[in-house]
Each structure stands twice: as C-alpha cells, then as structure tokens.
C-alpha cells in the first residue's frame, strides 16, 4: 500500500513492536509473554512492513533466510532439551549456569529453558513470516 502516512508510522512503530516482542520473550518466564507471544508479535511487525512497503523490503529488514531461521530455531529448542540428556537427566530437563551480576543480589541464571523459548520465538517468527510472505507474493 502506498500510503505515506502509514509508511511513516511504520518506521516508528516497527522498532517499538520488535523491542516489545523481545521484551515479551525474555520476561515471559515471570510475566505474561514468552516465545510464542513474542514471536507472533515480532512477526506482526515484519508483516506490517510487508503490507506497508513490500515483501522485498520486509525480507531485507529481516536479513536472515527464513528456512534457516526456522531450522535454527527448531534445532535450538531441541538441543536445549538434549543438554539435560547429556547431563544424564531426562530429555528436556532444565540445566543452568549461574552468572553472578555485580550490583545484583541474585545471580543471573543462563538456563536451557531460555534457549528453548528463544527457539520457539525464532520458529514462530519465521513460520509466520514465511506464510505471510508466500501469500502476499501470490
């Protein structure tokens, strides 16, 4: 669509939406949100670009190839489960490394579920865009 008003708005909305989607992803373990919701919202941002500008522009914004992103996301989610297996626990068991943060009483926990959720995020983002792009290009 060739509305200048829309395009301008998108330029300012887009970073906010993407940022918010990442926020939802990373804070999802403690507050409403998570990989799906973040991924879907992120996809919405790119979809907005595809509608307001063109699929090509949107793809360029994304930079990564969707198949790769999708495969990578799925692999990441899977492998985050394998970590437990390697440690002798059942598949998908959580494992984490505690990273002490200066100025913070609790250490930061780099946990497998975080990678799991990021995998979900990437998959949801990429598949949604895959579908939207393919349809928009028809």
């Amino acid at each position, binding site marked *: 669509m060739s509305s200048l008003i829309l395009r301008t708005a998108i330029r300012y909305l887009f970073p906010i939406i993407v940022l918010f989607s990442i926020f939802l992803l990373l804070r999802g373990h*403690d*507050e*409403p949100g998570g990989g*799906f919701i973040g991924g879907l919202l992120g996809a919405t941002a790119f979809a907005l670009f595809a509608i307001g500008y063109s699929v090509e522009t949107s793809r360029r914004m994304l930079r990564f190839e969707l198949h790769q992103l999708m495969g990578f996301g799925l692999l990441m989610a899977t492998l985050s489960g394998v970590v437990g297996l390697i440690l002798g626990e059942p598949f998908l068991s959580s494992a984490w490394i505690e990273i002490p943060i200066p100025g913070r009483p609790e250490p930061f926990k780099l946990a497998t579920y975080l990678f799991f959720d990021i995998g979900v995020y990437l998959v*949801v983002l990429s*598949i949604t865009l895959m*579908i939207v792009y*393919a*349809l928009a290009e*028809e």
Partner: protein
Amino acid sequence: MELILAIVIGALYAAGLYLMMRRNLVKLIIGLVLLSQAANLLIFTAAGLRSPNAPLIPPGEKYPVGDFADPLPQALILTAIVIGFGVIAFTLVLFHRAYQSTGTDDLDQMKATDT
C-alpha cells in the same frame, strides 16, 4: 458463569458444524475456525473457572498468593491455539489452491477423487 460459557460453547460448535456442512469452501474454513475456538473455550470451561486472578507468582513470593486460575488448561489451550493457527493457515492456503486448480469454490464439484 459456567452455564453462560457452556451455552456459548454449544453455539460455537453448532455454528461451526453447520457452516462446515455448506457447499462453499469459505464457509467450510470459517466453520473450522469456529470449531477450534469452541474446543479451546471448552477446555477452558470444563477445567473449571476458579478465579479471575492470573496464575502468576508475585515478585518476592515463592507461591501464588490467594486464589488463582488453573494454569494447566491455559498451557494446553495455548498449545492448541498455536497448533490451530498452523492448521488453519495451511488449510486456508490449501483451499485457495484447490480453488485455483479446480476453478470453483463449490465443494459439490470436487468429487473426482471419490467417484
């Protein structure tokens, strides 16, 4: 409360199924969407509506405070919703392609593979 939702669920099922039995591709998929809404709402209701409070643990606590909604059905429905989205997206495109290759959206004319 359950009564109201139960009726809504029934209506969604009835409408979804009715639409699916039409001859039109578009109605079929709308029916499918209604059906999946109905199923999700059904899980939600059947599991019991315990509380209006979200199942969140407040900062500083280890357990939820007071009463809270049952989190398990929520997780199940979330999964079901997302699966449903994938399915609907695929079905939608399938119908679109079926329309392209058969040249009609009348389901009654799509029976070459059966007879």
